């Protein structure tokens, strides 16, 4: 049975482990329709995704200045927490 959930995450520097503030996180595709709103990480690198239908597979794009990372994630629980190294 599908439901909706807002998934949280954190963006951090792969080398140092330091949080990355002001990164822009957006959904670029997936199995379900998604709001075209972008999230921005706070000073602690934390961010949230908009309310999404789960379970589902979504493509994420993380943009921080010139650094860009694309991910495909499977979300099957509202308790999912994303930890994303840049």
């Amino acid at each position: 049975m599908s439901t909706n959930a807002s998934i949280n995450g954190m963006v951090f520097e792969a080398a140092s482990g330091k949080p990355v503030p002001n990164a822009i996180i957006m959904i670029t595709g997936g199995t379900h329709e998604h709001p075209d709103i972008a999230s921005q990480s706070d000073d602690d690198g934390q961010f949230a995704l908009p309310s999404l239908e789960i379970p589902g597979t979504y493509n994420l794009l993380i943009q921080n200045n010139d650094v860009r990372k694309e991910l495909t994630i499977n979300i099957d629980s509202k308790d999912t927490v994303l930890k994303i190294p840049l």
Partner: protein
Amino acid sequence: MKSKTFSGVSSHKESLGNGNNGGDTISELPKPVTRVFSTESTVSLTETEIEDVEGYSITRPGDEDKEAANAPSTETEYEEMYLEESGTEEFGEDNFAMDAFFASYPELQSKSIAEVIIGTDNRVRISPTTSYPWRAICALRMTAKDNTKWIGTGWLVSPRTVITAGHCVYLHGHGGWPKKIEVIPAMNDASRPYGSFVGTTFRSVNGWVNSKNRDYDYGAIILPSSSRPGDRTGTFGFAVKDNNYLKNSYLNLSGYPGDKGGAQQWFMAQKGKATSSRVIYYDTDTMGGQSGSPVWIKVGNTRHAVGIHTNGHITGNSATRIVTPVFNNIQAWKALGM
């Protein structure tokens, strides 16, 4: 997965929901520090305006029946309605004769009644952003009740009224009405040619706030009385158009995509792909951050928004369609910002 219904009836009579800073609702409870969010509850649609009272909202019994009785009952009835509200562009100091797009591609201007697009990569950067209509499009910076930060787009319909997606002014799972939204007309990288303005008074509709129904995903920011960017930028008009018109017209869309940093305005246009009673579908490329962008039709020098971009999906991106009840609400919200 949400279904897309391309036929049938949407007969909801909708009305204003509203909120401002602190205007949470009974369906939104404070979230724990662990930031693990609960699933959304679903309640029925209502038709009356929600006053912006912190921590309070109400759904009146029987409103669903009223909705069915008080609105056009067929899509054909929508098609018979042609409502238009004019925008303005005579303000400001940079009132160029051509849109920036045609300034870059003048050979295309004669090919369409609307802005057109090149090839499959639709996106064109708008720079400078100080000509109309681009200057009436605003980058939005939302700070949700739970302090999460978000990027979206909006567009001015009056000096102080910014139209956007419902999910930009009411964030389910993040405290509902946001703490504040910074509105930056014509943002162009670090340049803010018309300044920036902080809004704390918001409007949406019960179909979005209480039911999170995609068909009702639209809202407005009413800026403080001292903040009147629309006096300088000009404003968008808006209109109700029928299915055939929408599918045979170029739908222009411009906003602030996150993959470009969220501080640059990018424009796209394509003909409509499909319509439902409350949604317009198109293949125009969009990206996170463009929620709330205007989807407009241009005929000559006349522009009318016909949708509010809200969603992305592999089968087609989509906008909340401006149908008569949406038109009426935008008109009412416009009046609040005069």
